[in-house]
């Protein structure tokens, strides 16, 4: 039990944990002590002097952000002395801060505005000339306006301490002090934009958003990011059916403070000029636009005419869509041939852990990474492939003294945080673990995280290794995309149905389907033609996609689908946490994959249950909750925005090992598979050109 101390704040007797900073102790007791430079989790500055409080028997006011609360302490945060101090500090700040609030991006959501409104003076006594320096462009997505900067140093600290990048510093001194990129006039960093989010004023602004709108003209939708498998929540700022901005304003996701460049800026594929917004059918070997009625009829007819079918699902579509897709395949088309591009061997992991209790789970969540005393990372480069995971590890190492052990084929940035790191030859990762055995045996509990390098029989070996460790060992398999895990959980696999239950009849895997002689394909939100040679003309191909991808180009019927920000539903991140995807906006002409599938099913006369009658994903989700093992999760928690772990450990998983099919697409921070091509910010930043994952990672 933590020791509690009693203290008095504004004449009220309160208690707090011993050692808590006064500013936090006050907040826990419902008293706001204003501050600019204080930021939970970052190093202390005591620079802004907004949090000054009056402590009994102290000659001077003290900063609440640096004073640990002590037994018997008597504090005032609300007396005349404090009011005056706050008022003058704000008056000082406004001497050089331009009052361009009417045009400033931050106007309406600015901490300085709010503070002045609450604690400031109505007028100013400053009549001298203000300082001015021109605004600077640090990168296509980060701009700095020095006069607006109040020098709280949050940006420097988030970049140094949170990101471990250290791209920002401080130049000059006194009133001329300026935040500067350490590379001179431009950023060389991860372009995560965390500095923009954390800026309390409009000093750091987003190149993708600036001077376009006002905060109160937009609606805000916090929804899982469309890109990697981490499942961060991004807040989309939407005006007139257009996403104006992505940021972390909501900060309610399991990513906490964090968002990477993809989450923040990788939304504009939604409005790409290359979006398909009208269905197309192939006529005289050319895809020509047509009506939805015509296209659905053509798709239904083509599929009906074929005797054998292959179905390929997506790692980006929702659980509802993937669930319905496998139902469409197995019950509608009556084909066992269904698969998707796999990047983590979840079936092998669930099988290796079969028989373990649901609680405490042998599967770790993203939160567990943050709290674990030790992490063993095998393969993968989280800094690029799972940025939130990298953030969580860095945070845990920094604030909770977590011990990180790394085995990888090459050195990765997280080595900087590691207690120990070993380079292993491809395929020798598991043997290499022996070197850490003694160290890991001393750790309390270990979370073992592995990339697509570890698959098939290696997973069994890994679990055997984990079992020899004394504590409660938990596992995480890292998969590439926003719903890679969901696709597996929903049974978009040839050997497994939803919930890791054996399929009634095993079908062909992705490579076998594409190399075989199937008469028709239904490809939803996937681009296998990027990797595999698909003979156009031989088979009848129906493609549902947002773009004219390599696969879409060989379609006989091309149906424009809605993107992830344009529909409701649920997605499951690589940690098995299910989150609700919220409808952000509608794009004219596109339909959700669920709706398209329902239309085809109806046209083909399939009776696929609730989803056939309704295009609402909620009803499909109810069916998932009822019928998919491990997905009977608390709906209320889900609807209110929480991430709820699915319970996918349900006994043995008789699966067909195909380790050769499991590979990461090795996306960097600046690529995102086919989707990434249509995100302008990802390719606009200079860092994108150089960035590569180290050789050998993710294969």
């Amino acid at each position, binding site marked *: 039990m933590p020791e509690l101390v009693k203290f008095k704040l504004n004449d009220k007797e309160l208690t707090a944990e011993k050692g808590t900073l006064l500013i936090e102790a006050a907040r826990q007791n419902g008293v706001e002590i204003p501050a600019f430079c204080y930021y939970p989790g970052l190093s202390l500055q005591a620079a802004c*002097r907004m949090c000054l409080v009056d402590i009994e028997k102290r000659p001077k006011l003290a900063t609440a952000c640096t004073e640990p609360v002590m037994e018997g302490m008597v504090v005032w945060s609300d007396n005349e002395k404090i009011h005056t101090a706050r008022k003058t500090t704000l008056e000082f700040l406004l001497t050089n801060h331009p009052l361009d609030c009417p045009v400033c991006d931050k106007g309406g959501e600015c901490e300085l505005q709010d503070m002045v409104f609450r604690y400031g003076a109505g007028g100013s006594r400053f009549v*001298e*000339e203000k*300082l001015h320096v021109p605004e600077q462009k640090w990168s296509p997505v980060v701009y700095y306006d020095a006069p607006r900067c109040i020098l709280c140093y949050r940006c420097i600290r988030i970049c140094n301490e949170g990101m471990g990048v250290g791209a920002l510093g401080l130049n000059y001194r*006194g*009133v*001329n002090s300026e935040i500067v990129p350490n590379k001179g006039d431009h950023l060389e960093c991860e372009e995560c934009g965390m500095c923009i989010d954390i800026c309390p004023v409009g000093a750091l602004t987003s190149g993708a958003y600036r001077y376009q709108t006002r905060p109160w003209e937009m609606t805000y939708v916090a929804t899982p990011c469309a890109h990697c498998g981490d499942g961060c929540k991004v807040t989309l700022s939407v005006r007139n059916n257009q996403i104006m901005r992505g940021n972390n304003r909501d900060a309610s996701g399991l990513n906490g403070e964090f968002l990477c460049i993809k989450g923040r800026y990788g939304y504009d594929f939604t409005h790409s000029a290359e979006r398909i917004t009208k269905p197309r059918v192939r006529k005289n070997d050319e895809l020509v636009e047509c009506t939805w009625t015509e296209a659905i009829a053509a798709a239904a007819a083509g599929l009906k005419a074929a005797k054998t079918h292959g179905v390929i699902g997506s790692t980006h579509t929702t659980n509802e869509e993937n669930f319905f897709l496998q139902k469409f395949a197995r019950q509608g088309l009556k084909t066992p041939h269904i698969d998707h591009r796999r990047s983590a061997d979840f079936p092998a992991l669930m099988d290796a852990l079969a028989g373990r209790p649901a609680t405490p789970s042998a599967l770790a969540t993203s939160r567990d990474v943050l709290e674990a005393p030790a992490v063993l990372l095998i393969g993968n480069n989280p800094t690029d492939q799972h940025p939130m995971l990298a953030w969580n590890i860095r945070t845990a190492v920094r604030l909770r003294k977590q011990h990180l052990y790394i085995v990888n084929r090459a050195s990765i940035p997280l080595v900087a945080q590691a207690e120990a790191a070993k380079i292993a030859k491809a395929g020798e990762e598991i043997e290499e673990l022996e070197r850490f055995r003694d160290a890991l045996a001393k750790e309390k509990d270990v979370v073992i995280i592995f990339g697509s390098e570890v698959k098939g029989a290696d997973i069994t070996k890994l679990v055997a290794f984990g079992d020899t460790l004394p504590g409660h060992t938990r596992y995480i398999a890292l998969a590439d995309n926003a719903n890679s895990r969901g696709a597996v959980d929903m049974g978009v696999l040839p050997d497994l149905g939803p919930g890791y239950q054996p399929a009634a009849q095993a079908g062909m895997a992705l490579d076998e389907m594409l190399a075989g002689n199937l008469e028709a394909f239904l490809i939803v939100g996937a681009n296998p033609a990027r990797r595999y040679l698909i003979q156009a003309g031989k088979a009848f191909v129906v493609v549902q996609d947002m773009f004219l991808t390599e696969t879409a180009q060989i379609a006989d019927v091309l149906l424009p689908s809605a993107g992830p920000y344009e529909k409701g539903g649920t997605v499951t991140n690589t940690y098995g946490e299910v989150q609700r995807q919220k409808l952000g906006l509608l794009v004219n002409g596109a339909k959700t994959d669920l709706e398209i599938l329902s239309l085809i099913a109806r046209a083909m006369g399939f009776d696929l249950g609730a989803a056939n009658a309704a295009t609402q994903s909620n009803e499909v989700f109810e069916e998932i909750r009822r019928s998919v093992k491990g997905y009977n999760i608390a709906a209320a928690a889900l609807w209110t925005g929480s991430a709820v772990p699915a319970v996918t450990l349900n006994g043995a998983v008789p699966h067909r090992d195909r380790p050769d099919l499991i590979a990461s697409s090795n996306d960097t921070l600046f690529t995102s598979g086919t989707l990434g091509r249509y995100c302008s910010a990802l390719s606009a930043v200079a860092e994108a050109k150089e960035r590569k994952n180290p050789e050998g990672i993710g294969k």
Partner: protein
Amino acid sequence: MIYGLRDLMPGSEHEVKVISRRFDLPNSASIDTYLANEGYQAFLKARKMTQDEIIEEVKKSGLRGRGGAGFSTGMKWSFVPKNIQKPRYIVCNADESEPGTCKDRLLMQFDPHEIIEGMMIAGLAIDAHKGFIYIRGEYRFLIEIVEKAIDEAYARGWLGKNIQGTGFDFDCVAHSGAGAYECGEESALLESLEGKRGIPRIRPPFPAVAGLYQSPTILNNVETFATVPAIILKGGDWYHALGTPKNGGTKLTNISGHVKRPGCYELPLGISLRKAIYEVAGGMEGDKKIKAIIPGGSSTPMLVPDQLDTPMDFDSMAKQGTFLGSGGLVVMNEDTCMVEVALRVMRFYSHESCGWCIPCREGTTWLKKMLTRFHAGGGEERDINLINELAQAMLGRTFCPLGDAAAMPMISAVKHFRADFEAHLNGNKCPYEGRQ
């Protein structure tokens, strides 16, 4: 041009020469002169004493920090924890930058070994084996002198391993600052010495516990260290008796401004301002009247002629609402424009504010801009009160004492010389123009 001793220290019968006693000797900075005149004998004596005995002797001397704060040196040394498995460091603050102060430079120029020896004795007192002398960047010529002294000491076995067969190791390094007044603040100095931006640290912990490289550190002013050998050699009681009961010893005092013989004098603590100005410094130039006195460097509140009988020691100055500070006495005559004085002072602090905290960064700049306008005749009645209010708003609310240093002279300028401010109103040009 490098000034000679006589330019800097005109000499006076009221002087009591302890730390400056070797300045007059030929080649006073050389190790030969030093060794021939009691040099490094205090170290040898201290080597035979226990750590507690050394600290006790320094406590007995009543020596108070000569950098300006006047904290008991013996006490400071005793705060260093004994049972920490970390290296300990001795840091000498030679970042002398307070306007009106130019005493440490004399010690470095004329007797650098005295400083090194003082640091070595501090090293003995806390079992530290490495010392750093952080020298103001603008004192380039002094860095050469100090480095030469260090080289000599190494060459003659007074620094390095097993010093003179005593079994004690001590290394010493001179390090140059980069021109920031702020780095004279002890924690900013440590940051700068570690190679970081010179901004102060949050305290506690204090340097005695977590100083340089987060290790226990004794950090004293040049003059403080230079005083230590004499205390060890002749005893704390002897040194103490040179000053007043609570303010032992002597102090290098710089007297500048409109006096006949400006310069640096080693005076016993407790000598009155009147005596210092009229007898030591020879009185006022042109026998004009005194208007204001800055007693201890530009950051200390100003005194007026009524307060001339105040003894120059830490406690008596405190009673008058000001500080003995660094011993930089600036005397101004009746033809001095106090608005211009305020402007000069504020120009300095606004230039030197590190910018870390809001009240100092913005407050000094605002005051500088306003005083510039005011002195040029653009002032308004309400500005006079505003100067005081802004200074009060900075006082005690900044991250480090620089804000206070800037605020205090403004408050005293408005308090004592309101008439000067009022004379600048209504577009009047400065009434003192051309009078000096």
